[in-house]
């Protein structure tokens, strides 16, 4: 089979040793020839051993959270990103977007060298020297008339950029979509602190989210998830309750124990009413009293329900209320944020679960950008430099940024990709990818993450920092003072200064340790004492006003994987389904079942959405988690540039939105008319039938039962479902030991003296369904992305998939909730797939795995038919030749065979990691230790829901987890003896 797979894997990696740059610190002769020859290093780099991974600590730049990453490199190629356990924000975890950064590095759509626009509008390549000379001259001429737009990330580079611009007298704007402007305004108003606090979800005993998707797209999702899992999960024997208020359930909403489907834009009323109740409970004054009755009238939520939740909120100490997402992106959102601040004050959460010490980074807000674009129109900008920002795409067309940009005579972009903005520029100076350059990031006070190049650049690009310095030297004048020989040197000098601040004498040692640990993780300075409730500014709630006509309110929200569109050029993020709707590769519009019935619309029917500002045609997705009278469209697609993967795919929801008013882009501002076009396109959804049909797949038990330590069966019994009685003891006894017997019988494969039995436990009360594990699995196991047409035929190869089953919501009015369950090969001890394989390609390994020998497989597919969990995936086409266009194939994990067509594949419990650990253990004459390694999914899981290990070792974590009373096996009744134990979700039954 391998002979059919040209994709670059272990073997080919060896042959490109010469191309191996030897990572950060090694100097190497770099011949990039890729012939089928053995090409040795010229100089053997110290930190590279062929066949052995080298890890570098760095910092993720996919969003402004600035998580720490460990980059796994092999033969000088980055092959996987994992979280840096030492980093205080993400503690070793990484979200899908962060992991997919790798596909940015090797993206075929990257600009391969500097380019300038020719007369006829096309781009032509040029040398770096000429490019820099050109820019220098232009900057020299422009002087103070230089404008700069950059991303919101803070760090040495963005400081340099600021100083550089300041030296010229130009103006710099740090901007990114969803920049939390209202939240900052509110914080200024209430606390006099212009910044973003850090929210401690772990501490909270009761959480209310007003539209904030804190598990997925809001502030620091990984950190929030970890905290949420701590408080809401059942690990500590208790579970905090989470209530979500908003017109549309996002991933956070789906994880909530209660959903308040408030009318869009009325969250503030709810918050104020709750504040009044809570304040009353606590005997505190409240600046702006607001009655529950009024709130009920505004939001459409029954008064008693509001009352109840408010009291529950008050009773729990400490609790936490957050506002964000779309709710914080409309005309009344500053009021909302103020109201929520007051609510937190009233409940006494400020200083407890809301800490301003953190001071999370953010940009300058849209107002600043508006100012700059005004200047651009006014002709005060003759050179515009755009860095890590794509305003032409990410702003509504009605903002007319493209036109304003055209007014600028000379436009420069450092973008890695030819996106909507850079394609309007005159000079392209492609930036190094974050994994190829030096920089650091200061996402919050006390945390400074370092970025170091982990490999030689893939293309002829340069770090924007070096470009700035070189331009400074060329242009001279005010810029002459930037005389560092390289940005690396500049960065180093800053860190030496930092060392001095820290009172470190030995700057070299300081630098080395920082480099090793991935940065400097100190304590945040003490927080300013939060202002009291009394001093809190009063706030007036005003009902939301939506422009335009049409019977629906339009919600435009950030896609959980593509976010504001920056993920749209990465196949992993396109094929990994949206965790809420489970749709891949294209856009959709969500409408409620009731609305769908009224308009007689089914999934996939193309609807025409028309506002005063534009019209779009999008396939419908009937979604029980959205209020009637509201339709929602995700951002992220509809690119007109940005590489082959993104271009011409889906629609850009921003086309429906009016120009930003005031300080921020309002994603919830307009009404929309919805009409059927009669068109149809099958939704590229990975969901089959999203109901459990009483099959007990994703199980749950009420908190009370869990606290009593009941098993599922007992819990059901209590609820009076005798039919859920388990088998009589003797039957259980009779069934026992199938896998054990099979396991003991094996005589081969005695790796470490004693056979382990690999097993896994997945805690559904911690799992949030974020799908970081899925992306990790794609990255670790060389899983090809098959594209929309194949997903439409259900042929995606997600070894690990997240099934999302709806509970309730079948009749109108009945509350709906979701259950997530990660489904992967269960490595059954009594596996149905094994006996039916005619060639032993599927067989049981001595260490309790369902082996899958790709090169033995002839492709009868009987195993897949006979797999009750349907976790076996077939290579219908030569996916191995389609999925990784050069140079994307460089991302492939050299330890894992790339499967050819006609072969069955499936989860192997990351056998390459198992064997790797066993090899190492054998070299050191010791057994494999528990926790020494884990599977890619378990490693990535932000909420630590997955535990992997040797179930035979009684001291192992997984063995302990399997003893949990909540433990159960999916489809236990068919006696396949799975090695994966699920721990039932713990729910808060809603009374009344």
């Amino acid at each position, binding site marked *: 089979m391998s002979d059919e797979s040209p994709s670059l894997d272990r073997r080919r990696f060896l042959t490109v040793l010469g191309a191996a740059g030897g990572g950060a610190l090694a100097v190497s002769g770099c011949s990039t020839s890729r012939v089928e020859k053995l090409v040795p290093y010229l100089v053997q780099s110290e930190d590279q051993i062929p066949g052995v991974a080298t890890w570098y600590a760095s910092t993720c730049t996919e969003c402004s959270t600035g998580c720490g990453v460990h980059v796994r490199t092999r033969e000088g190629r980055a092959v996987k990103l994992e979280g840096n356990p030492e980093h205080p924000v993400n503690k070793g975890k990484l979200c899908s977007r962060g992991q997919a950064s790798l596909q940015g590095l090797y993206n075929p759509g990257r600009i391969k060298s500097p380019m300038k626009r020719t007369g006829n509008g096309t781009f032509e390549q040029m040398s770096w020297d000429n490019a820099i000379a050109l820019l220098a001259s232009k900057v020299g001429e422009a002087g103070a008339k230089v404008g700069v737009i950059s991303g919101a990330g803070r760090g040495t580079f963005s400081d340099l950029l600021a100083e550089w611009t300041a030296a010229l007298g130009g103006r710099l704007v740090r901007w990114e979509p969803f920049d939390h402007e209202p939240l900052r305004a509110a914080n200024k108003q209430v606390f006099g602190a212009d910044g973003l606090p850090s929210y401690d979800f772990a501490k909270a005993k009761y959480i209310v989210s007003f539209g904030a998707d804190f598990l997925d797209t809001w502030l620091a999702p990984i950190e929030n998830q970890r905290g949420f899992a701590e408080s809401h999960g059942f690990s500590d024997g208790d579970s905090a309750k989470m209530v979500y208020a908003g017109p549309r359930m996002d991933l956070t909403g789906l994880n909530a124990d209660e959903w308040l489907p408030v009318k869009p834009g009325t969250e503030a009323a709810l918050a104020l009413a709750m504040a009044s109740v809570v304040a009353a409970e606590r005997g505190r004054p409240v600046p702006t009293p607001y009655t529950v009755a009024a709130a009920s009238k505004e939001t459409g939520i029954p008064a008693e329900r509001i009352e109840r939740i408010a009291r529950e909120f008050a009773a729990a100490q400490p609790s936490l209320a957050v506002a964000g997402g779309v709710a914080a992106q409309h005309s009344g959102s500053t009021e909302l944020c103020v109201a929520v601040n007051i609510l937190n004050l009233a409940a006494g959460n400020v200083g407890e679960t809301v800490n301003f010490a953190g001071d999370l980074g953010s940009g300058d807000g849209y107002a600043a950008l508006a100012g700059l674009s005004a200047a651009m129109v006014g002709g005060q900008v003759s050179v515009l430099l755009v860095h890590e920002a794509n305003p032409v795409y990410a702003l509504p067309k009605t903002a007319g940024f493209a036109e304003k940009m055209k007014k600028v005579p000379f436009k420069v972009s450092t973008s890695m990709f030819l996106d909507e903005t850079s394609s309007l520029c005159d000079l392209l100076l492609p930036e190094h990818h974050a994994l190829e350059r030096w920089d650091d990031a200061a996402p919050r006070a006390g945390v400074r993450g370092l970025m170091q190049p982990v490999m030689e650049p893939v293309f002829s690009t340069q770090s924007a920092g070096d470009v700035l310095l070189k331009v400074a030297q060329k242009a001279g004048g005010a810029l002459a003072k930037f005389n560092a020989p390289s940005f690396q040197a500049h960065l180093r000098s800053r860190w030496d200064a930092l060392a001095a601040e820290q009172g470190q004498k030995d700057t070299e040692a300081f630098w080395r340790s920082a480099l090793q640990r991935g940065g400097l993780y100190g304590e945040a300075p003490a927080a300013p004492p939060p202002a009291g409730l009394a001093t809190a500014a009063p706030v007036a709630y005003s009902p939301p006003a939506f422009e335009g006509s049409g019977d629906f309110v339009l919600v435009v929200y950030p896609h959980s994987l593509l976010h504001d569109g920056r993920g749209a050029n990465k196949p992993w993020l396109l094929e990994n389904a949206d965790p809420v709707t489970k749709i891949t590769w294209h856009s959709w519009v969500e409408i409620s079942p009731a609305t769908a019935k009224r308009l007689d619309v089914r999934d996939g029917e193309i609807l025409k959405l028309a506002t005063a500002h534009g019209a779009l045609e999008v396939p419908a997705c009937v979604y029980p988690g959205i209020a009637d009278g509201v339709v929602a469209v995700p951002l992220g697609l509809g690119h007109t540039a940005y590489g082959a993967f993104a271009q011409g795919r889906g629609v850009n929801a921003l086309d429906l939105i009016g120009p930003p008013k005031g300080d921020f882009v309002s994603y919830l501002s307009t009404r929309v008319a919805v009409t059927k076009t009669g068109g149809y396109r099958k939704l590229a959804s990975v969901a089959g039938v999203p109901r459990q049909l009483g099959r007990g797949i994703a199980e749950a038990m009420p908190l009370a039962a869990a606290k009593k330590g009941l098993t599922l069966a007992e819990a059901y019994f209590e609820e009076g479902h005798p039919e859920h009685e388990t088998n009589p003891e003797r039957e259980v006894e009779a069934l026992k030991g199938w896998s054990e017997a099979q396991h003991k019988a094996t005589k081969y494969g005695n790796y470490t003296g004693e056979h382990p039995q690999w097993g896994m436990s997945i805690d559904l009360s911690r799992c949030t369904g974020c799908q970081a594990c899925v992306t990790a699995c794609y990255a670790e196991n060389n899983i090809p992305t098959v594209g929309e047409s194949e997903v439409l035929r259900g042929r995606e190869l997600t070894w690990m998939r997240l099934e999302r089953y709806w509970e309730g919501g079948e009749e109108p009015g009945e509350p709906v909730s979701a259950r997530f369950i990660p489904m992967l090969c269960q490595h059954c001890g009594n596996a*149905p797939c094994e006996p039916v394989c005619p060639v032993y390609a599927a067989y049981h390994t001595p260490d309790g795995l369902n082996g899958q020998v790709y090169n*033995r*497989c002839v492709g009868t597919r009987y195993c897949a038919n006979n797999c009750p969990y349907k976790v076996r995936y077939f290579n219908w086409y030569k996916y191995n030749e389609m999925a990784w266009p050069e140079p994307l194939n460089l991302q492939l994990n050299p330890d894992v065979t790339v499967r050819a067509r006609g072969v069955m594949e499936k989860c192997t419990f990351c056998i390459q990691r198992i064997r790797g650990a066993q090899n190492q253990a054998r070299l050191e004459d010791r057994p494999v230790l528990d926790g020494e390694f884990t599977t890619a999914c378990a490693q990535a899981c932000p909420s630590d829901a997955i535990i992997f290990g040797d179930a035979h070792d009684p001291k192992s974590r997984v063995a302990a987890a399997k003893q949990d009373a909540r433990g159960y096996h999916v489809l236990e009744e068919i006696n396949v003896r799975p090695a994966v134990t699920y721990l039932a979700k713990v729910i808060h039954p809603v009374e009344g």
Partner: protein
Amino acid sequence: MAAVTHPSTGPQLEITQTHADVTRDVVATLERPSRGYLLLLFSAVGLFLVGLTTFGILVKDGLGHAGYTPPVFWSVYITTFVFWVGIGHAGTLISAILFLFRSPWRTAVYRSTEAMTVFAVMTAGLFPIIHIGRQWIFYWLLPYPNQRYLWPNFKSPLLWDVFAIGTYLTVSTTFLVFGLIPDVAAVRDKVTGWRKAIYEMASVGWQGTDNQWRHYNRAYLYLAALATPLVLSVHSVVSWDFASAIVPGWHGTIFAPYFVAGAIYSGLGMVLTLIIPLRRALRIEHMITEYHFDNLAKLTLFTGSILFYAYAMEYFIAWYSGNIFEQTTFFRRAFGPQWWAGWTMIVCNPFVSQLLWFRKIRTNLTALFVISIFVNIGMWFERYVIIVSSLSNDYLPWAWGQLNPTWADWGILAGSFGWFGMWFLLFAKNFPIVAIQEIKEMIPMPRLRGGHH
């Protein structure tokens, strides 16, 4: 000469010719082909080429062109495989079992049905190769010594299949070829020129001496005895491909007898479909008569009724077991997205076959022909429903999906009919499609006219 009735065959079968007539008539079928025949042959070859091309594309790009939609990992190809294996069975039943039971009415038809068996199994044998993901290493399913110390997995029903089909092909081929010898000899004596030379060879020096006849009859008897158990075993093994899996809708103890009955039923359908036009085309109406069809129809009715019972039983067990997986499967089989397939099978098999209670229908060739077509369609759909609709909704609702067959599926299906038709037509034109010597056996010795004293 006066019509005589053969004592052993009862009143129905009228033999109106002399030995010479029989030979003449049968040999006549081997004369220069008519335009109609050629037309049929060419269309068969055409279809076969369609299949061949499709297969080429599948090998080049992978199975993706076919409509496979997980969780449906088997679909049209396996359906067609089972269909063709089934077809074979009627042939063996008629030629071997009825021979052992000395039932004379088989004589006129058994040769053609036997040929049908061989070619049907030849067709079926292709599918295990066509449907696998890496066709070029299909031989890994065979146990052969190799330096890798690897053996196939004898626990796998697919391996049982390999052996079952292999045996069936060998035995039925031997049976056919052996049975041909005397007839080929008869033909040899009639034809001239280069054809004579060929038949000379094929008749392996048959002289029709008593000695040869004695050996021949013995051997034929033994071969018949050898073939008989295969009627039951082969399709039982095929049924275990499904019965031994845990897929709801497959996992049934009733499968073996159910499949065997179905196989014979479908086989009889095919026999009728082939013979009714054939006898006209070859002008042998007087040899294959109403009487034969009446009997074939009765057999069809019998097996059809067994199917009726099996279907009913499947639904009953699903309900009675209280197993929600089974229940869902059978509910969706009748009322799910693929309801049309489910009902096609139920209408075409049990119900249509019940029409054969009426003698009028049994003896009306047009009606029989129409019914036989229904049977063929129905039985193909039976396999389609069992395979596809069971797979499309098994244990985890999240993984459910519906199959949409594509050109690649239909291409291979058409090809299989072309391949079968091609061989059958060639056979019919080059070998006596009616067993000469067995017909002769039924003709009474010519009586002596009153002689002089």
